[in-house]
């Protein structure tokens, strides 16, 4: 089954290779990523290959009537390109970052898009957190780097949980509805082999070596998540995961006031939203059961998360 295309959009991999290549080179190609339209331009073949590989199921079109972002991934125009092969990211013509080694171009696209969303989409409360949904209930996993958030998120998304986002959770401050992006999941170092063996049939982007995070790559969002990306979800749990080598799985309730503080530390634009952010965060914490979660084995972790779903079933669900 392929995603339902609307408004003239078709899954990106349904575009002919020529239409795709020319559209991308001329900056006329747009990807629908959840609620966002992203116009992309690049002549770099590895970025094109990456996009076609991991965004192949996302709706796309040529010459969109509107785009939230216009992004280019390109070789820098300065003299440094003669000394070392480099790549730079531009959004709306601005280059917010220093160039990176050329081999990191696909990763730079993802990091740059993260930055672009976090810097400007203040219609949502945005949190550095993974977010997944099952049976209409969503879990938000805020966590600092190194906590095992993305590894856990990848495993859950490959075992029946619908991926909304790995990095950026978008929360409607009025309704608390969570908007999905279903973008690729950024995995690094040992997590890559772990997830490769966990689900050998998954789709991957290329490896990028020697990044500031070590070896990284991107796992394509599962098809089911892309197909249902526009389906919003309501938050049910706030879980702060932490990988602890050798640990038995442990789900421990959290103090709500302290959860508020931890949540805000992971929010990108809490202070930008002022009282709106305060109010939304308070209601979010009221709406969620809040936990710390330690784990070492993915199968154990999945069992715990599936138990959360079972425990939340009301008698009406069984009728």
């Amino acid at each position, binding site marked *: 089954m392929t995603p339902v295309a609307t408004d003239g959009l078709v899954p990106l991999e349904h575009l002919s290779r020529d239409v795709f290549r020319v559209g991308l080179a001329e900056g006329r190609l747009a990807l629908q990523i959840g609620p966002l339209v992203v116009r992309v331009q690049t002549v770099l073949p590895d970025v094109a290959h990456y996009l076609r590989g991991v965004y192949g199921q996302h709706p796309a079109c040529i010459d969109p009537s509107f785009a939230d972002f216009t992004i280019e991934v390109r070789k820098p125009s300065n003299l440094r390109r003669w000394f070392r092969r480099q790549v730079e990211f531009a959004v709306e013509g601005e280059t917010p970052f220093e160039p990176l080694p050329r081999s990191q171009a696909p990763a730079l696209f993802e990091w740059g898009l993260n930055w672009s969303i976090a810097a400007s989409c203040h219609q949502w409360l945005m949190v550095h957190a993974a977010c997944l949904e099952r049976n209409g209930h969503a879990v938000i996993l805020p966590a600092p780097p190194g906590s095992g958030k993305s590894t856990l998120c990848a495993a859950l998304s490959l075992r029946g949980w619908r991926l909304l986002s790995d990095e950026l959770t978008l929360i409607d401050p009025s309704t608390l509805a969570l908007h999905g992006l279903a973008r690729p999941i950024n995995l690094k170092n040992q997590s890559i082999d772990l997830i490769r063996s966990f689900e050998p049939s998954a789709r991957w982007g290329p490896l990028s070596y020697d990044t500031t995070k070590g070896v990284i790559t991107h796992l394509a969002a599962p098809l089911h998540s892309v197909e249902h990306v526009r389906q919003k979800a309501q938050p049910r749990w706030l879980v702060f995961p932490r990988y602890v080598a050798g640990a038995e799985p442990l789900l421990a309730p959290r*103090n*709500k*006031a*302290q959860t*508020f*503080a931890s949540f*805000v530390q992971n929010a990108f634009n*809490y*202070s930008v939203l*002022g*009282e709106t952010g*305060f*109010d939304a*965060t*308070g209601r979010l*914490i009221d709406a969620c059961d809040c936990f710390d979660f330690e784990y070492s084995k993915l199968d154990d972790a999945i069992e715990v998360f599936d138990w959360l779903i079972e425990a939340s079933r009301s008698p009406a669900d069984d009728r």
Partner: protein
Amino acid sequence: MPPAAERLAWKRWPDGSAVFDRALGHTHILNCLTSAVLHAKLQAPSASVERIREMIVPAGNEAVPSLQEIAESLTELQRIELL
């Protein structure tokens, strides 16, 4: 600066509070005691430490706070400019 009762938005839970200061744009997380002290002080701005202790009703099995604990909470609330 407007009175604290107008300046502050509250979110209260049994284990503490989050307070948003509309005037400064700051958010503070308060433990149960400090939250109760602030609440009492907003109701009775001139209340003494002893009077605040009378106003605080301990939740559940919590012990009645000492005068020193209340004084420390007041100091903390002044430090973070909620009083």
